[in-house]
């Protein structure tokens, strides 16, 4: 594990180098171990791909003449090998996300099909038959960075990002796929829309997905999409 500062109020712990499942599992374990320690002065623990970033209040790590950065690093190192709350992985779940892959909700579907040299039906069938792993949540509230996009569906981002991507849009960006939980700008290729709300600020857990969760997409007909509740 390598530790380095992210400014004066956070430390990045790097646990691997690549985007792979073993690294992700280690990242989730360690993230949970740091949270479980429940140390005063730690406000946030953010797992993402190969890193866990720990946000701290320097004033809470400045006891005596101690250097706050050394103090927080010692704390982080003390979490290595610490048993995490069982059963871990935030009770990682397999989530099914229903998607209507058609019409106005899939403005970039023709481009993706053309780029991948396949029919629209093939794009839908391949996209909805893979299982994806949530590597991180960010970009916008609740936005899942999903790994596991079949190589044949890889499509570069749009040259010019859209100023407005509606909430619920399902999209492909390079080797990743994701769902926009709130209206936002975005440069990914939009291939469908889910009626699910992936960010619900009034729920106890606002983000529907968490790092470590697995995701499958289930195609909806237009009728099923319209009548979804």
């Amino acid at each position, binding site marked *: 594990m390598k530790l380095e500062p992210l400014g004066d109020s956070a430390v990045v712990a790097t646990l691997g180098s690549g985007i792979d499942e073993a690294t992700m599992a280690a990242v989730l374990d360690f993230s949970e171990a740091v949270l479980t320690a429940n140390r005063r002065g730690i406000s*946030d623990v953010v797992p993402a791909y190969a890193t866990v970033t720990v946000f701290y209040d320097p004033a809470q790590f400045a006891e005596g003449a101690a250097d706050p950065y050394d103090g927080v690093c010692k704390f982080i190192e003390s979490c290595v090998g610490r048993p995490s709350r069982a059963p871990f992985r935030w009770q990682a779940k397999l989530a099914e996300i229903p998607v209507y892959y058609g019409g106005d909700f899939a403005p970039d579907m023709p481009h993706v099909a053309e780029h991948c040299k396949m029919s629209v039906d093939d794009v839908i069938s391949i996209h909805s038959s893979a299982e994806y792993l949530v590597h991180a949540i960010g970009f916008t509230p609740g936005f899942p960075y999903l790994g596991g996009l079949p190589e044949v569906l890889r499509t570069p981002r749009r040259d010019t990002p859209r100023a407005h991507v509606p909430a619920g849009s399902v999209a492909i960006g390079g080797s990743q796929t994701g769902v926009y939980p709130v209206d936002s700008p975005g440069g990914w290729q939009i291939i469908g829309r889910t009626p699910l709300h992936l960010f619900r600020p009034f729920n106890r857990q606002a983000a529907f997905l968490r790092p470590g969760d697995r995701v499958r997409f289930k195609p909806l007909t237009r009728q099923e999409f319209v009548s979804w509740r």
Partner: protein
Amino acid sequence: MEISVIRSGMLSTVQDLGRRGHLAEGVPFGGAADPFALRVANLLVGNAENAPGLEVTLTGPELEFSKAVWVAVCGAQFENIPSWRPFRVEAGARLIFGKRLQGCRAYLAFAGGFDIEPVMGGRGTFLAATMGGFKGRPVRDGDVIKALDGERHLVGRWSLDERVLPPYSREPNVHVMPGAQSGEFGDALFSGRFLVTARSNRMGIRLDGAMLARSETDELVSTAVAPGTIQVPPDGNPIVLMTDAQTLGGYPRVGHVATVDMPLLAQLAPGDGVRFTRTTVKEAHAMAHASEHALALLRQGIAEKVKPA
């Protein structure tokens, strides 16, 4: 008490000192872009430092208060509005912000504060998710916002010692700690002045100046970023992330602004300049400690002058 918004100004949002504990869900800290100014504005009217106030951007609002109340406006300065000291607004009177004189964001606090329920542990407006604050959006002409009553008794005549304020300037020197990719960018960040562009907001300040050319070309895996992180997208123009910035980033980081200097950036308007100077994490902690110490003294002093009625 109620506050009626006669004119909203360009972008006026209810803000407190932000949310903690939700970065992993993609929800940034948020809250006042210049937390120092909001904290002092609240102290001056006898509120808790974290009470929600109004963050006013570039053009000020026109507000009407249904009851007489003590008000303080800190941060950016506007014509007709006393700055960094409490003043009385009578019932039914209108507080009319004039022309902006300096700074970018003013913080209006009044005894009691807005009556706002917290969302995800914060009362501030998070525009990207239309949540928190007043209906999750900037206030508009015609809005009527509920507020808590707060009677205060102010002792004697006094004013704030301006030496306690951060060194606000239209071209501040901002302290920067190294970022993970600092070594790939040479000295360009520290070599001259950068200009704040109009494409700046609560999410980030986009700068224009020396192009920052990176010596490496590998793509980086996204990791957490923080307010103050200076990212360099492929066009070479640095972006300083601000309080509402996204929580993860994949662009190279050329440095991180010391937390204590974030108020200096929050007060920069388009066209203003900024210069960067090197610091270390250790020095940044020492500066933050000194600033908190000064604020603690201020808090003590004000507590003797502003009392519950």
